[in-house]
C-alpha cells in the first residue's frame, strides 16, 4: 500500500486536487439547493489552491520521490505502467505551478463574470477537468497519456466555448473549435499509430532512443518517421495556433465568453507548448534538425500574419486573438532554439515567456470582460478616455499592453530578450531580425490602445463598475507580476 501512496497518490496530488474538487462539485450540484451555491463556489476555488499547495509540497519533497519499478510487486503492474507514462521532473513542477496560478485567476474572473448565470457550477467543474488535463499533458511520458490528457483538456473546452447558449457567435465558435480540434486529434492519433508501428513502443524516451539511429531518408522507415513527425507538427500547430493552422483561433477567441478566452489564451497555450516541448525535444529530438528550418520559417510567417492582421482590428478581443497568434510565432522560435544538454531541456526562456504572456493575457481579458459586460462589445472606441476615468484599470491595461509589445521595463521585454538570446545562440540571427521587425508592426496596434486609453477624448465618461474586490485584486496582481518578474526573473528560474 505504501508503494501506491509513494508512487501514485503523492506524485499525482496536484491533478487529484482538481479532480476531487470537480467530483465534489458534481455531487453538490446534484443536490440542487440554492443555499449550497456559496459552498460550491468555495469548493471551486479550492481546486486550484489545492493544486498549487500540492505542487509546493512536491517541490519541497521532490528529492524524496523515487520512481522505481523494482520496488513494485507483481500485482502492482498497473502502477509500473503509470510510472512509465507519467513524468515528474522539475520542468513539470514549474509548469504545474503556472497552470495552478492561471486556473486560480481564471476561476476568479469566471465566477464574477457568470455570477448571475445558472451554469456557473458546471463551468467551474469543466474548468477543473481542463486544468487536470493540462497537468497530465505537460507531464505525459507516453503517447497514450498524451492523447488522453489532450482529450481531457479539449472536450470541456469545446463545451465552455459555447456555454453562452443564447449567443450565436458562441455556438459557431464552439462548433468550429470542435471540428478543428477533433481534426487535430485525429492527425495526432494517426501519427501515434505510425510511430508505434515503427518503434513498437509508446514511451517518449524509448521512441527517442529508437530515432537516434541514423535515418535512411529514402527508406520506407525514414519516410514513415518523417510523415509521423509532420503530422505531429500539424496537430500541435492546430492547438497552439501556428500559421497556416490558425484559422479557427480568432473566431473562437472572439466567440467564447471573455474570461474563458483569457483562460484558453493563457493556460491552454501554456499546456500546448508544454506538450510541444516534450514531444519536440523529449521524443523527436534526434530528428528535430530536419524540421528546424521549416518551423523557423513558419514561426516568422506566424508573427507577421498575426501582427499584420491585428493592425486592422477594432474589436479588442479579435485584436488580442491575432496578437496571440503573433506571440505563438515568437514562442515557436523559442521552441526550436531550446538547447538540450544531455536529457535536460533548457526550458527556462520559453517558460518565462509563457508565464508572463499568460498573466498578461488573463489580465487583459479580465478587463475586456468588464468592458464587454458594460457596453456589449469590446470595441476599441469603448475604452476611449478610460485611462483617466478608470485610472486603475487603465493603468493595468497599459502595463499589459506594454508587456505584450515587449517594451521595457515590463517582463514582456525580458521574455523576448531571453527568447532572442536563445535563438541567436542557436544560430537563428536572421529569424531574430525578422522577429524584431514584426514586433515593430506589433507595437503600432498596441500603441493604438494606449492612444485610445489616454489621448482620445471620450464621447461620454463612463466608470466601469467593479462588483467584486477579488476581481480587481487579480487584475492588479497580474499587472504587478509584469514588473515583479522583470525585476526578479530568478523567481521563474532565470
Amino acid at each position, binding site marked *: 500500500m505504501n508503494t501506491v501512496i509513494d508512487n501514485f497518490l503523492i506524485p499525482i496530488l496536484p491533478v487529484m486536487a482538481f479532480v476531487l474538487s470537480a467530483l465534489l462539485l458534481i455531487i453538490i450540484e446534484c443536490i440542487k439547493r440554492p443555499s449550497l451555491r456559496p459552498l460550491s463556489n468555495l469548493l471551486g476555488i479550492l481546486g486550484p489552491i489545492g493544486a498549487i499547495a500540492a505542487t509546493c509540497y512536491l517541490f519541497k519533497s521532490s528529492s524524496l520521490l523515487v520512481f522505481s519499478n523494482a520496488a513494485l510487486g507483481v500485482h502492482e503492474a498497473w502502477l509500473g505502467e503509470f510510472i512509465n507514462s507519467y513524468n515528474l521532473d522539475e520542468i513539470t513542477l514549474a509548469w504545474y505551478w503556472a497552470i495552478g496560478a492561471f486556473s486560480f485567476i481564471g476561476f476568479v474572473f469566471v465566477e464574477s463574470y457568470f455570477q448571475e448565470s445558472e451554469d456557473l457550477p458546471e463551468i467551474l467543474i469543466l474548468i477543473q477537468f481542463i486544468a487536470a488535463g493540462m497537468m497530465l499533458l505537460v507531464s505525459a511520458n507516453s503517447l497514450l497519456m498524451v492523447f488522453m490528457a489532450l482529450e481531457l483538456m479539449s472536450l470541456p473546452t469545446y463545451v465552455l466555448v459555447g456555454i453562452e447558449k443564447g449567443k450565436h457567435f458562441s455556438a459557431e465558435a464552439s462548433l468550429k473549435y470542435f471540428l478543428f480540434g477533433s481534426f487535430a486529434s485525429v492527425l495526432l492519433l494517426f501519427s501515434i499509430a505510425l510511430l508505434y508501428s515503427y518503434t513498437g513502443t509508446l514511451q517518449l524516451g524509448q521512441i527517442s532512443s529508437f530515432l537516434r539511429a541514423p535515418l535512411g531518408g529514402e527508406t520506407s522507415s525514414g519516410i514513415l518517421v518523417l510523415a509521423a513527425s509532420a503530422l505531429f507538427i500539424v496537430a500541435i500547430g492546430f492547438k497552439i495556433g501556428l500559421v497556416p493552422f490558425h484559422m479557427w483561433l480568432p473566431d473562437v477567441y472572439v466567440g467564447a465568453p471573455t474570461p474563458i478566452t483569457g483562460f484558453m489564451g493563457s493556460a491552454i497555450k501554456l499546456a500546448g507548448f508544454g506538450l510541444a516541448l516534450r514531444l519536440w525535444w523529449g521524443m523527436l529530438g534526434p530528428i528535430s534538425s530536419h524540421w528546424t528550418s521549416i518551423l523557423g520559417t513558419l514561426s516568422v510567417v506566424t508573427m507577421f500574419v498575426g501582427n499584420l492582421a491585428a493592425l486592422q482590428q477594432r474589436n479588442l478581443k479579435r485584436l488580442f486573438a491575432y496578437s496571440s497568434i503573433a506571440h505563438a510565432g515568437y514562442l515557436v522560435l523559442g521552441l526550436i532554439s531550446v538547447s538540450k544538454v544531455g536529457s535536460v531541456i533548457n526550458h527556462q526562456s520559453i517558460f518565462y515567456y509563457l508565464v508572463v504572456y499568460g498573466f498578461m493575457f488573463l489580465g487583459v481579458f479580465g478587463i475586456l470582460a468588464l468592458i464587454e459586460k458594460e457596453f456589449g462589445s469590446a470595441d476599441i472606441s469603448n475604452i476611449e478616455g478610460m485611462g483617466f476615468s478608470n485610472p486603475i484599470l487603465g493603468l493595468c491595461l497599459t502595463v499589459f499592453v506594454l508587456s505584450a509589445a515587449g517594451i521595457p521595463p515590463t517582463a514582456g*521585454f525580458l521574455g523576448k*530578450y531571453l527568447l532572442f*538570446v536563445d535563438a541567436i*545562440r542557436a544560430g537563428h540571427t536572421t529569424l531574430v*531580425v525578422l522577429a524584431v521587425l514584426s514586433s515593430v508592426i506589433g507595437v503600432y496596434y498596441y500603441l493604438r490602445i*494606449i492612444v485610445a486609453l*489616454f489621448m482620445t477624448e471620450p464621447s461620454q465618461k463612463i466608470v466601469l463598475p467593479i462588483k467584486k474586490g477579488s476581481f480587481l485584486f487579480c487584475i492588479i496582481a497580474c499587472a504587478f507580476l509584469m514588473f515583479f518578474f522583470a525585476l526578479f526573473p*530568478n523567481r521563474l528560474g532565470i
Partner: protein
Amino acid sequence: MNSSLLALLLFIPLVGAAVCVLLPSRLAKGISLVTTLVGVGLAVLLYQTFEGADSDKMQLAWALPWIPTYGIKFGLAIDGLSFPLILLTKIMMPIAILASWGEERRLRAFAVCFLVLDFAMTGTFLATDIFLFYVFWELMLIPMILLIGVWGSQNRIYAALKFFMFTFTGSILMLVAILWMFLAHQTQFGFFTGEIAQFSKVLFSGTPVFMGFSSQDFVFWGFTLAFLIKVPLFPFHTWLPDAHVQAPTGASVILAAVLLKMGTYGLMRFSIPFCPEAFVKFIPILSTLSLIGIVYGAWVAFQQTDMKKLVAYSSVSHLGFVVLGLCALNREGLTGSVLQVVNHGVSSGALFLLVGMLYERRHSRQFEDFGGLAAVMPRYALFLVFVACSSMAVPGLNGFVGEFLILLGSFKAKPMWAYIAVSAALFGALYLLVMIRQVLFGPVTSGENKNLKDLSFRDWASLVPITIIILVLGIGPNVLLRKINPALDSFWKNALEKTTVKTGVTTMNIKRNTKRDKKV
C-alpha cells in the same frame, strides 16, 4: 553618501512620482518642482564629488545583482562622457516644469510623466550595463509619448505615434546588435556579462557575412541607426518637427535639451568604442549625411514662419555639427562635439522656452501675428536676442566655443567639410535674425499684442539660470572641460589605437592627425 549618490540621483524622481500619485492633484506641480530642485542640489554635489582632473575611469559605481545567469547587473556609474549630460538633465528638469506651470489638465499624471522621464533619462546616462541602458532607453519613450499625446496641440496623436514608431524601429534593431555583442562576448571570453566597458574588447572577424559587409558593419549600423534616428541626422529627422511642434512647452524643452543628446551620447558610448573600424569605414556616409543635415536644416529653418518649427529645424542643423565633429576624428572635433551637445541643449531648450512663453500669452507662434514686441515686452526681447545670439554662436557666448572647435577639427580632417559647414553657420545667423526682426521689431501691428505682459517671476526664475550657464560656458568653458577632458583623452586614445592597429587605408589620415596633434 558618495557611493549612493548616483542611486539617489536616479531614484529621487521616482520617489517624487510615487508621492505625486498618493497626494492630491493640486500639489502635483509643487512636488515635481521640489523633486527636480533636489535633483539640481544633488547635481551640484556631483559636480564637487566628480574627480574629472584625476581620473578618466568610471566613478561612484553602484551595483545590484539582477540576472546573474546572464551576468546582468543593475549597475550605475559616471564618467566624463555622461557627466555633462547628467548635469544638463538635472538643470533642465525644473526649468521644463516651470515652463509648463500653466498646464491645468490632469496635473497629477503630467507631473508623474515628467518625473518618470527624469528617472529614465538619468538612468540612460548612468547605466553601466548594456541591458539596463536599453531598459531605460525604451522606458523614456513612454512618458514622452504620453506628454506629447495627452497634453499636446491638435495634431498630437500623429506626432506622438510618429515619434514612437521612429525611435522604436531604431532601438529594436539596436536590441539585435546588443544581443549579438552579448553572445560574441560569451563565445570569446567564456562568460556572460552586461558590462558596457567589456564589450569594447570583443574582436570581430573581418570576413564578410552578407553582401560584402562584415559582422562588425552590421553591429555598427544596428547601434548607429538607433542613435542617428534619435539625434536626428538628416534622412531620419522627420519626426522631430512634428514632435516639437505638437508637444507642450516643457516636453519640447526636454526633448531638445536632453533626449536628442542621447543619440550622440550613444554614438560615443557604444558605436565608436565597439566598432571603431566600421566607424572609420563609414565616415564618408556619416559626414555626408551630417553636412546635408547642417545645410538642409538651416535652409528649411530659414523658410519657416512658425517659431517652434524654426527652432526644431535649427536643431537638425546644430546636431549635424555634433556628428560632423565626431567624424573629424581629432581631438578638437571631439571636444567641440561634446561642448556643442551641452550648448545646444541649453540654447535650444531656452529658445523653446521663450517661444512657449509667447505662446502662453498670445496662443500663436506665427511670425505674422507678431511684430514690434520689443516695445511691448522689452525684457522678453532682451532674453530672446541673447539666447538667439548664443544659438547662432556669437563669440563670448557658449555656442561659439563648440562650433568653433568643430569647424577647426573638420578643417583639419577635410577642409571641404569646414567650408560647407561654415556657410550653414551663416544661415543659422540668418534665420534667427529674421525671426527676431519679424517678432521683435517693426511696428506693433496687432491690437492684441499691445497688452502682452512682460516676463513674470516664473519666467525670470527659469531664464536667469540659463543665462548664467550660457555666459559661463561662453567665457570659461574650462569649468566643464577640466572635468571631462581626461575622459575625452582616454576615449580618443582607445578608439584611435584600435583603429590604427586594425584598419588599413583609412588610418593614414588618422596617423597624420595624431602626429600633427602631438606637435600642437
